[in-house]
């Protein structure tokens, strides 16, 4: 090898190294510059400034804890205990949790030595390490008396309103109303509401009841009574929620498989080896592009105008969009079929339809079905989103619960259910795909490089 060629090779190598090095710096630099542009154009600093820490706290606290309100109407002395202050969580007259003792003087034990008592005229709050606060709410205002010294910052007192926030709970005293909040961890009344005979029973007790012959609700077996109590829980509306989940899956199922059924014949029309007419192929492909390009959002809006909100609209929107995607993928798969098998079937005198049925369909079924199943999982997610727009399924419940801005425990319940639903569909579609592709054979060797297909992938 002469020195000259070596020199050429060296410069070549140097050039390549230079190029690599330039890329190595340029690419991260471009990314950083772009992200900086995004930071400015999305006004990230402003967003962080405006972010409501209060909202975030409410959201997080509410999603894993709840509060019980004990309130006294100072005009007539009536004491009411309500979970989350909601009517459907209100204890019936005379019934109370064990930390509240109702009577002439109602005593509310907030735990950790914090005790509030509602007397006829006087409200008192024993705070360990601070002292006792008393108040005589009435016409002249809250009339609170505090232990000597400056008021700590967790007491907010004015003439007509006193708010005391401690780690055990919160006491608010106004002229007409005295209210104590006690916080608990967990989701309140998740299984049974207060009016259910099963409320407040432990797990072991419930299992025992389920198998015992004594009917708690006369004329109904305990298991079915429990099921009724759970499904018709007024606070959590489990029945409605599970129905909504089902509706979402239904939308995804109908949309995906409906699209597959529609796209199959259209795919034949767009495949080179089945449709000799170039104009038909061209037209079909543009139809697919159009269906895909318009996108589920616009289809949803258009269809909702004709059919009104509901699961059918969502299913049809998915169907239309995916007809475009499937048509494109199916026609590509059809162009790759082996013509020998078709010729073989033809040689037995099969008519065109029989040729398709026995020569083509068996070849493409595993490929097509695995693509369709892949879409089924992603369409479950799309159906959640479309449901939020068109008003069907769990997406609707989620947005409704969000809008109230206080039922965050319900929001987190829905989120958990949605994630479980999507993961279950993912598992199901993965299992079916493996079954289809491998059949009963030994586990097939993993594909070498999963080169990304040019075709569209699901949302």
């Amino acid at each position, binding site marked *: 090898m002469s020195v000259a060629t070596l020199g050429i090779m060296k410069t070549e190598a140097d050039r390549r190294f230079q190029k690599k090095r330039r890329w190595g710096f340029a690419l991260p630099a471009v*990314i950083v510059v*772009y*992200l900086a542009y*995004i930071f400015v*154009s*999305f*006004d990230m600093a402003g*967003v962080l400034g*405006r*972010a*409501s820490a209060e*909202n*975030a706290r409410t*959201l997080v606290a509410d999603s894993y804890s709840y509060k019980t309100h004990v309130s006294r109407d100072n005009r007539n002395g009536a004491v009411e205990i309500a979970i989350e202050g909601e009517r459907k969580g209100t204890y019936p007259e005379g019934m109370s949790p064990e930390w509240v003792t109702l009577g002439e003087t109602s005593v509310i034990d907030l735990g950790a030595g914090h005790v509030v008592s509602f007397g006829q005229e006087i409200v008192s709050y024993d705070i360990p390490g601070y002292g006792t606060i008393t108040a005589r709410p009435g016409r002249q205002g809250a009339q609170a008396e505090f232990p000597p010294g400056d008021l700590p910052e967790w007491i907010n007192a004015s003439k007509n309103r006193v708010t005391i926030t401690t780690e055990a709970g919160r006491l608010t005293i106004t002229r007409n109303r005295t209210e104590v909040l006690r916080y608990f961890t967990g989701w309140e009344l998740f299984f049974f509401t207060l009016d259910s005979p099963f409320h407040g029973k432990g797990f072991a007790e419930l299992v025992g009841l389920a198998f015992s012959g004594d009917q708690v609700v006369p004329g109904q077996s305990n298991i079915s009574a429990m099921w009724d109590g759970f499904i018709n829980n007024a606070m959590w509306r489990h029945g409605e929620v599970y129905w909504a989940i089902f*509706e979402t899956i*239904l*939308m995804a*199922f*109908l949309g995906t*498989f*409906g699209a597959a*059924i529609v796209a199959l014949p259209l795919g034949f029309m767009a495949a080179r080896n089945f449709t000799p007419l170039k104009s038909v192929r061209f037209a079909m492909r543009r139809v697919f592009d159009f269906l*895909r*390009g318009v*996108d*589920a*959002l*616009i289809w949803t*809006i*258009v*269809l909702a*105008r*004709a*059919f*009104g*909100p*509901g*699961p*059918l609209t969502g299913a049809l929107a998915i169907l239309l969009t995916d007809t475009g995607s499937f048509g494109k993928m199916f026609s590509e798969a059809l162009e790759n079929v082996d013509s020998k098998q078709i010729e073989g079937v033809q040689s037995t005198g099969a008519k065109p339809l029989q040729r398709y049925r026995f020569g083509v369909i068996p070849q493409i079924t595993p490929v097509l079905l695995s693509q369709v199943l892949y879409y089924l999982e992603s369409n479950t*997610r799309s159906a*959640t*989103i479309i449901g939020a*727009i068109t*008003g*069907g399924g769990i*997406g609707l419940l*989620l947005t409704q619960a*969000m809008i109230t801005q206080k039922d965050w425990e319900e929001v987190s319940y829905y*989120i958990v259910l*949605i994630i479980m639903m*999507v*993961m279950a569909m993912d598992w199901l579609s993965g299992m079916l795909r493996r079954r289809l592709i491998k059949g009963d054979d030994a586990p097939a060797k993993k594909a070498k*490089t*999963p080169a*990304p297909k*040019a075709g*569209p*992938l*699901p*949302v």
Partner: protein
Amino acid sequence: MQTLLGDGPRPVADIRSDYLGAMRRKRIYGGILLALFVALMVGGFDLADSRNAGGFWSGLHRIFDFPGEVLGEAAEKIALLPAHLVTYLPALIETINIAAAATLTGALFAILLSLLATRGLAKWPRLIPVFRRVMDIMRAVPEIVIALVLIFVLGGGPVPAMIAIAFHTAGALGKLFSEVNENADIKPVDGLASVGATWSQRMWLGVIPQVSPNYVSYALLRFEINIRASAILGFVGAGGIGYELKNAMSWGQGKYDEAAAIFILLFLSIVLVDQLSSVVRHKLTEGRAA
């Protein structure tokens, strides 16, 4: 005596009837499956129809009413259309920026997660299952869930949408990337390890150059998807062209020319990005094979 001597060659008639029996069974199973599937589809559509506010058959003739109205109004005010297109261009750019920034940040997280979740490459091999589960969960969360929660905390605008899409993207791309990583050649990594390279150096110099064409290809595919997602999230209050579309629609008649302009912008950008990314992806995958 045949039983003692063992079976001779079975008569052809036996084999034939066995074969026909097997075929019949297969056909019956196939038929049952097909009937079940058809019943599910029909029953499902019937149920969905009954739960819908308006029925399918009563609404079918109205299906072109709304597009007709929109197109009619757009045609009437065709002179305004170019102006509308210009008006809504910034919103479109915002939507595309949401998608691009989310794809970019999501992909960066996905690279990290996928490297940590690939056998042979992971920094902490014991934590591989943990990272896999994390990616599964991130992938399972629909964007709208995070977007709505973040809108409550951060207020409306592009940032909640961006974070929501990036979160989902990190999970979805992470899974695909880790499949790519599994096929990467381990030799350069071993070589780098033998000269004392740290984990990040081994990944950056040994793995990333091998897998980056596939990464880019998948990320482009995700970008297409994310543009659609970002338009939808705009509709629920996260800014961009979806938000403008919602406003134009909720004004009712009289604003449909604006809605038409938005439809056109959205359609064109989706098609354009689809085509562009498909060309680039073809180049990437074919360029590697050559």
